């Protein structure tokens, strides 16, 4: 696809997802995504990928480790 708007959207999609775009650009991306299913599908996919990355690190810390950490405190 060589629509310049889609090209632009592809370029700024990551900072958009990171909430690092300024407001004007953010509004522009939002409007484009509402208009363009092709980009919107890819936007949803990128968002889903982010969630999967986040999920790789949800295994909780061992209770034993927590105890060890608190034992590292200096003697009073």
């Amino acid at each position, binding site marked *: 696809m060589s629509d310049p708007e889609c*090209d632009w959207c*592809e*370029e700024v*999609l*990551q*900072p958009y997802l*990171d*909430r*690092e775009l300024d407001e004007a650009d953010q509004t522009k991306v939002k409007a484009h995504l509402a208009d363009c299913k092709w980009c919107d*599908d*890819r936007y*949803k*996919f*990128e968002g*889903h*990928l*982010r969630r*999967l*990355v*986040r*999920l*790789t*690190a*949800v*295994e*909780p*810390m*061992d209770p034993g*480790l*927590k105890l*060890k*950490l*608190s034992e*590292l*405190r*200096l003697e*009073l």
Partner: protein
Amino acid sequence: MSETSSEEARRLAEGARDRVRFEEDALALADQVYRVARGVSRSKEEAEDLMQETYARAFRSWQSFTPGTNLRAWLLRILTNLNIDRGRRAQRTPDSQPLEEGDYFLYNRLEAASGETEEERVLQRLSQDHVAEALAAVPHDFRDVLVLVDIGEFSYADAAQILDIPIGTVMSRLHRGRRILKQELADLAVEAQ
């Protein structure tokens, strides 16, 4: 008791109280710090070692923390520095294979491989295991940034401060790290067929 020694005793008691408060605050953040530790480590054991080193150092140098500033970022700065010091960086830096494809390339690739055009169907081709495996394959410098932003949910500016690198470097490493992640995922998804 003379006036100076009671003054001295009061100061000591205050210092001890500040320290205990610092320790409690730091421990309360351990779960969040651990998520980043786990993300930048190759194994659970490595993450646990890194946590203990981080907390030991934090407790020793608690006085260099400025109360009222971001304690989580402060702890993670220690953690990422230790991680660098420990020479876990022996890993190859990625060869400069051209990553010219655009950001949509993984989606496009999966879509082409599946013959599906529906976003949901394309999504199903990504498994959680593949994502974990792909993330582990991203070289450290890039993974650190990726983990801080995607898992730690830090802003680019905070990540730059934690890693002590310019914000432009955060952005370029993030960009490259995500590209490498997707490249790995594309390979894994194709292999899985």
